[in-house]
């Protein structure tokens, strides 16, 4: 029913989405923590910056990524010397997906962080746990629902992301052609609707699976945190 190229697009989408989510979780947690817990000059600005990928048309985001991380871009040229290349690689697709999903992850995690009772962290500190230990052993488990929600949103977004990706890393089968890019290309083709529909159903099935798994996980987490 599916051609090898389509399976390849699915596999790539999954890889890109997973990598995007896993790599962006730590910075998302860090920034969510900054925004939720610290008052500093530029707080609003940072928050706005994080939201940018949501506001900009994806094509613009992709274009900016291309200008920045392209082989001739400021950062891209520098990174290239270290052997890190994003442009026209699947890593670039992951970068684009990560950036597009970033605001969603940060928001979800931040909301959870803001709901954590600071008195529990205080209790941990009186038991001798330092800031990092308290964060790792108290805060982090307590915000697990938020992290999970953020990861699901990020994953779903990554599975559907295409505007920024196709603009940044093009649509090279087997290299950067994710499921949405493939769908897009089919939609451009006379008579391609059927193929587009097939691939869309595939994407939907995967996303549905991810959401269902996450719901199940969330219930387990909630039971642990004692909210269910």
């Amino acid at each position, binding site marked *: 029913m599916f051609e090898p190229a389509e399976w390849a697009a699915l596999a790539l989408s999954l890889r890109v989405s997973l990598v995007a989510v896993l790599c962006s979780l730590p910075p998302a947690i860090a920034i969510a923590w900054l925004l939720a817990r610290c008052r500093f000059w530029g707080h609003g600005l940072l928050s706005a910056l994080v939201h940018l990928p949501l506001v900009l048309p994806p094509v613009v985001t992709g274009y900016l990524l*291309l200008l920045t991380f392209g*082989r001739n871009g400021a950062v891209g040229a520098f990174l290239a010397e270290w052997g890190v290349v994003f442009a026209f690689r699947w890593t670039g697709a992951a970068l684009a997906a990560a950036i597009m999903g970033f605001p969603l992850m940060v928001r979800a995690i931040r909301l959870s962080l803001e709901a954590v009772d600071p008195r529990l962290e205080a209790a941990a500190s009186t038991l001798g746990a330092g800031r990092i230990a308290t964060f790792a052993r108290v805060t982090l488990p307590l915000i697990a629902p938020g992290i999970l929600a953020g990861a699901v949103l990020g994953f779903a977004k990554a599975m559907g992301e295409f505007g920024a990706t*196709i603009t940044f890393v093009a649509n090279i089968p087997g290299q950067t052609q994710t499921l949405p890019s493939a769908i897009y290309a089919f939609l*451009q083709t*006379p008579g391609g609707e059927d193929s587009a529909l097939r691939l869309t159903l595939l994407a939907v099935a995967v996303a549905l699976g991810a959401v269902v798994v996450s719901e199940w996980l969330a219930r387990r987490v909630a039971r642990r945190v004692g909210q269910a």
Partner: protein
Amino acid sequence: GGRVTVFAAASLQGALDEVVAAWPGEAAISYGGSGAMARQIAQGAPADLVVLANVDWMDWLVSEGLVTQASVVNLLGNRLVLVGPADSPDLQAIDAAALLGRLDGGRLAMGETRGVPAGIYGRAWLEDAGLWDALAPRLAETENVRVALALVARSEAPLGVVYATDALAEPGVRILYEAPEDPAIQILYPAAPLTTAGKELFAHLRTPEAAAIFARHGFAPPGAAP
């Protein structure tokens, strides 16, 4: 040796896939918008061969020094048609009154008239035909020409201006009028090899077998009225 990477305008998918399948070498085709691809090439995209749907962007690549003018070939041509839903009757005349009458408060779907090639061409044609001023307030401009086609096929719009290639493949529409050939508005698909690796496939695209396949999908030879 190795795989040849082609950057090609999205509207060529299908036809180009078939042509490349007939080529003995191995190729990966990245379909996209002409502007995006041109910019990507400027940023070092690993393309060996490029086929755009728009001469302006190829000129831009030349002016950026990424492609030599000499290597550019207009590979294909296309034509604009005025379409209506499959069940719509013939148009009596092509003038503002007749078109507005057919629209009957509805809209004329076409590509975005500043950015999307089909829209740019369509606008030029309507201007030449003296219809632009009457129709401009009644447009529904779309992000790409396929959406304009879909709008007509779904009877959301009574009329649309699309490529002949698209109209042929869509049973939901019927062609009401074909835009006359106009040397000032040539719809061309310029192609150029970017690397030596791309030259072989580039040559294949210009073979008669390739031309036959393109023709079967409704494309015209460049500069020639079909």
